[in-house]
């Protein structure tokens, strides 16, 4: 479904992605772990073209997307993204946040978009908060609205960039529950996270990235209990306090 082929990215002289090759199958939930600065976020952004790869190819559902003549807006409708800092539109209510994409980008009518938005908010458990503004919601609630907002575009796949890293501990569970349900429903997803419990439950494969390369990949059990590489072991031991 998503294929990344030998992708490189430079920020100035900093070689952030050094030849990443990755395949994500349909309905697969892939988890990427790694220390900060390893390029995980950059990799995600190369997939929905918020960042342009300097070399290599990115395929979404068989289509080569990092071309000069590609319609970026179309690409971003194929994959939805959820950010670490939620990035909800502060001047709109939760409902309006979810409705905005379908109305402006997909050209849906207001009524249709509203129905869809209400359904999605119910799906993430926030039907009651439809008319609340982001400032009135807790972090966990905001992130769930952000997930609903991304889902409103009917994406083929979802990218999660450390979705729970900015949350207070008591709110992490509710967001992970939504993500787990999403994975069970068959959504293709790539999740960058430190939440090992989630990774073990949901992912078939875990990828460990460090210094811009993929050092190791395998089953959650393999990675956590029998990591092959030294750096993998060091990293895993640090987060599995």
């Amino acid at each position: 479904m998503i294929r990344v082929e030998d992708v490189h990215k430079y920020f100035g002289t900093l070689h952030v992605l050094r030849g990443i090759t990755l395949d994500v199958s349909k309905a697969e939930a892939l988890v990427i772990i790694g220390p900060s600065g390893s390029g995980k976020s950059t990799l995600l952004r190369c997939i929905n073209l918020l960042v342009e790869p300097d070399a290599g190819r990115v395929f979404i559902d068989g289509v080569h997307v990092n071309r000069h003549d590609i319609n970026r807006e179309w690409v971003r409708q194929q994959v939805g993204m959820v950010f670490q800092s939620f990035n909800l539109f502060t001047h709109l209510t939760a409902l309006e946040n979810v409705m905005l994409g379908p109305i402006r980008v997909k050209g849906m009518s207001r009524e249709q978009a509203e129905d869809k938005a209400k359904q999605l908010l119910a799906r993430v458990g926030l039907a009651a908060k439809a008319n609340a503004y982001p400032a009135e919601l807790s972090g966990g609630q905001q992130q769930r609205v952000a997930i609903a907002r991304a889902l409103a575009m009917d994406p083929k796949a979802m990218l999660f960039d450390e979705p729970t890293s900015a949350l207070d501990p008591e709110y992490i569970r509710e967001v992970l529950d939504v993500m787990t349900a999403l994975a069970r429903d068959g959504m293709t997803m790539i999740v960058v996270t430190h939440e090992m419990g989630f990774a073990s439950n949901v992912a078939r494969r875990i990828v460990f990235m460090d210094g811009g390369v993929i050092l190791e990949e395998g089953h959650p059990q393999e990675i956590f209990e029998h990591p092959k590489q030294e750096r993998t072991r060091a990293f895993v031991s640090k987060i599995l306090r």
Partner: protein
Amino acid sequence: MATAEASVAEVRGQPVVRHAALTRVIEAVIGASIFLILLQVLLNFSLLDAEFWRRYGGSFETGIGTTLRFVGIILPLSAVLGFFLGWLRISRFRTLSWPVSVYVDFFRGIPPIVIVIYASIFGAALLQARFTGKDLAWNVAAVALALHSAAYQSEIFRAGFQSVPRGQLEAAQALGMRPTQSMFNVVLPQALRLSLPPLGNEFAVVIKDTSLLAAIGTLDLFGVSQDFIQAVFLQPGASVYWLLTMWTAVALVYFAMTTAVTQVLLFLERKFHVRGLEGVSV
């Protein structure tokens, strides 16, 4: 003693916030009245001199009208231009942003009265082929003042745009919005709300700047008042203390106008306030 106890009781029993606004207004009015009375006593003039107002009243009205007319030209012009320039200023294309920077540095670097004087000289002569009338010089100078304020307003709008957290732009892009769409639906609504208070200050400055047009002979409030001075010392029965009455009255009018404008914009900002957005530093 009584007042102290009364205020303490107020604070304990009532929501202090609502009181604050009203008390501030009442306070201001009382304070201003006391100040004006003291001023008149100290400087030995009267704001209510009947003879003065009989002679000056007409000019006073015309002057205020002209000032308001100029304000009506300059404010919208400068706001639209300033917004447009602010937008260009944050473009990633230097071809768009550099000329605007130079424009802003120029107009912010020289005194507005210099702009008024030379605009009236150059503008009138350059456009004389097409338009005529002594009003031409004045209108050109007014437009020049609009250009001047636009430079300041472009900085206000620019700060507004840049105050919208970058993550929101990213989120809009991630949803598949085109650049223009994310500008209109996400950045603009928030940037405009953030810009309102500093904009109110700038509008107040525009109102005060219209007085500069008197330097080229305009008959705005300041101009007619200056003309009246010639009259004061020529006519019999004129008192030199009329100067004080006149300028105090003129000051009050300007004060009323600037206060009105800033309050309106503060009110708008409160009405459309978005919680979770930081203020603008200009």
